């Protein structure tokens, strides 16, 4: 079979498996898989910066959480319909991205530190401004989304919704990273000084990438809150932002499926380990270290390397 034929067959198998999954798996597993899709989307948003532009952002939990809170507050407290609450969440997270995007004036470790600080600001607000955010309890009783009389009635239906949204995002993302803009991001990562002498205003390109990435993280936040049915400050916490990057790295940074695979591995592992071991966070730390030391290209990259070795042998 040709490589192209192989890929089409693999793609068809994945689509078929995804479509029939609810008929085999119970509600618990469907919930977990939906979570994997949602956090995979968050990891994908982080990876636009990490895997293409070469910026390590640790504040994407902020966009995710601000979008989730906005949608939840509008829907629960103000009775806003989904058709208003969901876009408003997306908009709020993206607007925050326009502000936090100023971080692209810095590079390297300063960029990382600034984004960590931004993340803590949002977490602090979510945590302490209880009258607005609900404090530690957050906002609860978020209903399933309903648009124009069509209502999502179950976790299975929500799974299909998340799957379609994620697939559309992945397709859009694919176009983006192959566009002149996407190529320029990789150029900036490779040699910013060279790109400037070719006429690129690198800060503006990185800023645009940052805002797009924040928008995608916000979309993940909106998907999250309708799945989770509540949001609390944990969504804005440091571990969420770090884990999103970890997912991208473990799965394969710079690819599209990588962040989703990473999300499945991390969430699957956490689910499994935490059922018998309280210190699952320590296990996550070890996974992170092992991935960076031995498989820095992630599982997708590792698979490509092994295939290359097999082809040569």
């Amino acid at each position, binding site marked *: 079979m040709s490589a192209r034929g192989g890929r089409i067959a693999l793609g068809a198998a994945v689509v078929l498996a995804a479509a029939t999954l609810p008929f085999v798996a119970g509600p618990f597993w469907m919930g977990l898989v939906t979570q994997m899709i949602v956090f995979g989307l968050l990891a994908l948003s982080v990876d636009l910066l990490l895997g293409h532009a070469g910026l390590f952002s640790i504040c994407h939990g902020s966009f995710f959480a601000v979008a989730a809170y906005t949608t939840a507050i509008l829907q629960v407290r103000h009775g806003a319909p989904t058709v208003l609450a969901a876009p408003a969440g997306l908009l709020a997270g993206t607007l925050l991205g326009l502000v936090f995007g100023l971080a692209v004036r810095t590079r390297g470790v300063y960029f990382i530190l600034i984004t960590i600080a931004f993340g803590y600001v949002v977490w602090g607000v979510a945590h302490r401004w209880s009258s607005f955010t609900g404090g530690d309890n957050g906002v609860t009783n978020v209903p399933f989304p309903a648009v124009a009389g069509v209502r999502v009635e179950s976790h299975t239906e929500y799974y299909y919704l998340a799957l379609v949204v994620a697939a559309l995002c992945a397709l859009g993302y694919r176009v983006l990273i192959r566009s002149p*803009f996407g190529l320029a991001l990789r150029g900036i990562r490779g040699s910013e000084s060279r790109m400037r002498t070719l006429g690129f205003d690198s800060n503006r390109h990185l800023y645009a990438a940052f805002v797009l990435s924040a928008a995608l993280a916000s979309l993940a936040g909106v998907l999250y809150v309708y799945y989770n049915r509540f949001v609390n400050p944990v969504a804005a916490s440091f571990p969420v932002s770090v884990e999103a990057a970890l997912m991208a790295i473990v799965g394969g940074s710079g690819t599209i499926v990588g962040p989703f695979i990473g999300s499945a591995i991390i969430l699957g592992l956490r689910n499994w380990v935490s059922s018998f071991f309280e210190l699952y966070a320590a296990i996550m730390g070890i996974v992170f270290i092992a991935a960076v030391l031995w498989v820095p290209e992630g599982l997708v990259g590792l698979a490509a390397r092994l295939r290359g070795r097999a082809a040569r042998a």
Partner: protein
Amino acid sequence: MTVAVEVAEVVKEFGGLRAVDGVSLRVAAGERRVLIGPNGAGKTTLFHCITGTLPPTAGRIAFFGQDITRLPEHRRTALGMGRTFQISNVIAELTCLENVMLAAVGIDGRKWVLHRPMAVFADVRERARAGLELVGLVHRADETARRLSYGERRQLELALALTSQPRVVFLDEPCAGLSPSERLRISTLIGGLPRDLTVVMIEHDMDVALGLADRVTVLHQGRVILEGSPDEVQSNSEVREVYFGHG
């Protein structure tokens, strides 16, 4: 005579060191100007100031009559500056063709296109291939720049500078470290560039420098010590002293 590049009393200090110490020079449109001088003369630093990589401490720089002293680097490129670096500065993880395609859209609004793949812009691809063809690298178009030899990287560097359609191109030792045959190839290529393209070049190899230059500027310890035709420079005793040593 149109003045392409005018540098007036430019100073660049690093801490207490004056790397460029009040340099003035004018390069006419279409001229081939070569800067020579011993190591540490300030040639590359002067290049950095002209192309905007470094801001000058003092002085003024004009490009076709327009003051560009405070203009950011990418805007200078848009006005028509192209440059190569002394140490090859190519994007190692991209292919040669991708490198040059970026050069082709760098001063073009299409660098902001994000909803269509680069591949649909056939003219960009054509220009990029033409750039690679010019430097003799078209057979390596789909090779990752990381895998190029040292000499091939120098060629790619030149293709990047020329594909952004500059009016003036600044070449920082394009032949440094090349074998004699590669050196000949590059210097022939530079000699054959269209005459309406102004070339300012730093070159250590006196044969290459004097063979290509219309005029030569000699820098020493951050200052211009002589400017003249290749013959004048070659016969000047002060130049012989600082550049070739005594004897």
